[in-house]
């Protein structure tokens, strides 16, 4: 028992590959817990960042700077009355949010947070991800149909048509990246998520910059298609509030509604992870080759700790700027505690062994966080596309370009 | 809506208003004996409030001359009151003249259609069209009198925008428009009874049955 615990720590594979069930379970808990936590953090961050884009403050009441708002929301949603419309198809109505949730969480099985930090490494990893995430369309269609109401039905039809359409362009872009993995001596590529990152490491280049601008265009196509795939602004037609009230989840409330939201945010993180893995070098730190060597390794491995220390400093700045009124004492103490926690994490990250194992995860998360911020930014900036325009962009713009990029990549790859 | 209307019981102060209002409403019949209320009131306000305001004076223009030549006495009155020109026409020719105004005289914008109710008069309704001509930058008011239960040809074929305006007149006064594509109540519910802007419809009156059936409350007041 103890041996299997410790043997994994020194091994060089993922727990799934090693067949280490215990560690696989630990990883499943860690990843799913982490994702749920990330969804909550994202929820807070989105409201806060969006608010600052829009000259307002956002949540300020629950906890310092609304830090506890997601928890309050979760409690509210859990205790809310649970409504099932009379004429709804109960079974389908029940399973729809579960399917979406399962689909978007199952994807995390293959996401590599580091060379060994993944639940498992399927050799069809990327195929698995695309396949499983495409299953969430089912949930959307079922939810729309089961509600037995016009708005959800139209919303779900729109949404599924949109997701299927953009999957095509997305798939093409992915294939062009996979094609790049085969540019090695043996001439065989890989579908494994870890393999893709390792291929980038071997070729000493992020696929974003490979065959410039081909890789870049493929990346752009993917990052547009992934926004459409997750039904987010400016492609949030299925839940276009002003037209279809809330789209396919109009009739949902309380817990089941929150499952939809959880699924949506989890899916956002998942597709961002795909983009990071395929084009941004996954867990690799910036400039692993240009700035290589012991010293640079040390410098980059210290960055996570410093970032947390900076965050802690920001929190303490907030403490100083809090009004001195006794009314705010609890809030101030809470914020100070939060800052202290951040600082502690930062200090722990400086410890040698932790530093070594954590930095991959840190870089991966940082890259994903960039995409999450972009999601918020899009939402604050863009109006919403109309359905026919959305389809036109998907089929007549993105698909031809992605096909062209695919062919171009193949040609350049052969010529090279 | 119920909440909104419920809060108005206080205007029980408004209730005595209604009888108090009656004599005033009864006042115009003397005026209404003549063709229009505007022409008749020269002496009353002069004594009442202030030196006589500028009052209706005959209005002459090529348009009036043309119409008078064509329809003779059908054009009952052509006057200008406080600088605003209006025509009072006989019911039988009004629709035709509206057509002429729209098509020949470039009154291409029907600003408003409304009605006024004079219950004591023989023909109790004034129908009023307010027309405007973009090319001439001129506004014109056309009026005609119609009797209770009498209908009037719809002018939706001339200005498509009169559709809702006529529906509103129908809703509020019960004047029917022949040939209107879709003459239904517009502001009040479809099955409401009574036409609220008639003078015999009190300000706190309502369709009790409708309120009870649809809102499930005793009274909307």
């Amino acid at each position, binding site marked *: 028992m103890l041996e299997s615990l410790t043997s994994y720590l020194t091994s060089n594979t993922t727990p799934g590959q090693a067949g280490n069930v215990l560690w696989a379970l630990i990883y499943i808990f860690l990843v799913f817990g982490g994702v749920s936590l990330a969804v909550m953090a994202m929820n807070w961050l989105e409201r806060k960042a969006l608010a600052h884009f829009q000259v307002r403050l956002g949540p300020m009441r629950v906890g310092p700077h609304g830090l506890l708002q997601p928890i309050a929301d979760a409690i509210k949603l859990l205790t809310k009355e649970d409504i099932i419309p009379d004429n709804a198809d109960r079974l389908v109505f029940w399973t729809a949010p579960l399917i979406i949730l399962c689909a978007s969480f199952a994807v995390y099985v293959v996401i590599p947070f580091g060379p060994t930090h993944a639940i498992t490494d399927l050799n069809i990893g990327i195929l698995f991800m*695309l396949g499983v995430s495409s299953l969430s369309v089912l949930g959307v269609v079922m939810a729309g149909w089961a509600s037995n109401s016009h708005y959800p039905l139209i919303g779900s039809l729109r949404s599924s048509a949109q997701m299927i359409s953009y999957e095509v362009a997305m798939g093409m872009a992915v294939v062009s990246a996979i094609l790049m993995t085969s540019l090695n001596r043996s001439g065989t590529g890989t579908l494994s998520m870890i393999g893709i990152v390792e291929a980038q490491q071997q070729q000493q280049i992020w696929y974003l910059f490979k065959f410039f601008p081909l890789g870049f265009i493929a990346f752009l196509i993917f990052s547009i298609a992934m926004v459409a795939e997750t039904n987010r602004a400016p492609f949030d037609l299925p839940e276009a509030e002003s037209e279809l009230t809330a789209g396919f989840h109009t009739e949902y409330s309380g817990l089941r509604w929150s499952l939809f939201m959880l699924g949506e945010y989890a899916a956002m993180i998942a597709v961002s992870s795909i983009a990071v893995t395929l084009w941004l070098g996954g867990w690799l730190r910036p400039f692993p080759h240009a700035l290589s060597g012991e010293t640079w390794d040390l410098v980059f491995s210290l960055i996570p700790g410093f970032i947390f220390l900076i965050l802690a400093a920001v929190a303490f700045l907030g403490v100083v700027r809090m009004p001195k009124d006794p009314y705010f004492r609890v809030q101030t103490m809470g914020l100070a505690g939060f800052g202290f926690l951040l600082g502690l994490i930062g200090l722990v990250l400086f410890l040698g062994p932790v530093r070594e194992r954590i930095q991959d995860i840190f870089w991966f998360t940082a890259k994903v966080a960039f995409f999450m911020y972009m999601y918020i930014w899009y939402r604050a900036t863009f109006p919403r596309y109309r359905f026919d325009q959305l389809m036109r962009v998907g089929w007549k713009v993105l698909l031809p370009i992605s096909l062209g990029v695919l062919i171009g990549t193949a040609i350049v790859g052969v010529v090279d | 809506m119920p909440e909104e209307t419920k809060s108005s019981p206080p205007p029980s102060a408004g209730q005595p208003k209604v009888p108090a209002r009656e004599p005033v409403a009864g006042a115009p019949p003397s005026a209404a004996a003549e063709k229009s209320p505007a022409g008749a009131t020269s002496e009353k306000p002069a004594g009442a409030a202030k030196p006589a305001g500028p009052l209706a004076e005959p209005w002459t223009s090529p348009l009036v001359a043309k119409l008078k030549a064509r329809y003779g006495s059908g054009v009952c009155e052509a006057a200008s009151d406080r600088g605003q020109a209006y025509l009072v026409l006989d019911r039988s020719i009004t629709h035709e003249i509206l057509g002429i105004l729209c098509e020949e005289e470039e009154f291409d914008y029907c600003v408003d259609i409304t009605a006024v109710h004079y219950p004591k008069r023989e023909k109790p309704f004034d129908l009023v069209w307010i027309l405007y001509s973009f090319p001439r930058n001129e506004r014109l008011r056309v009026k005609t009198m119609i009797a209770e239960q009498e209908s009037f040809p719809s002018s939706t074929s001339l200005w498509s925008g009169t559709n809702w305006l006529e529906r509103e007149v129908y809703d509020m006064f019960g004047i029917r428009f022949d040939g209107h594509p879709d003459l239904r109540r517009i502001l009040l519910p479809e099955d409401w009874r009574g036409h609220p802007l008639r003078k015999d419809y009190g300000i706190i009156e309502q369709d009790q049955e409708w309120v009870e059936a649809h809102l499930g409350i005793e009274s909307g007041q």
Partner: protein
Amino acid sequence: MAPVATPFFFYFLSFLTLASAILVITRKNAVHSALALILGLLAQAGLYLMLYAPFVAGVQIILYAGGIMVLFLFVIMLVNLERAQKEEQFNRQWLAGILAAGALGALLVAVFLKGRALFPASTQPIAEASNTQQVGELLYGPYMFAFEIASLLLLVAMIGAVVMAKRRI
């Protein structure tokens, strides 16, 4: 990868496949049937995985469960379900049905009994890692012509569908 609890998963997935197949034909509501079919297809994908054919499993999920069945659902949802529900579930062609089922069963039994002779056990070691590669080599090698014909057929079908749907343009 060391296999874990193989028999359990085999029976579990087989049961799931069979149960959902039965549900597909017994449910009166077409949407429920379609959903049961999706479950069956997913269970089948699981079986493929157990046969060390991850690529086929992935394609099964993407194409059948994710793509084709969603289109199925699309169509079914827009059909008037009330009428379909009132109609009789099974028609009276028992004889033909029994014959077809019997023939299929016989075929399966025959394959099971004589299978080893017909299909000799693969001499190659099972190579999970290169499964995708092998599929690709076969598709674009020996079966190139069949593959191209199949895709041409699909293209024709697609153009036909577009022409039919857009007849008015």
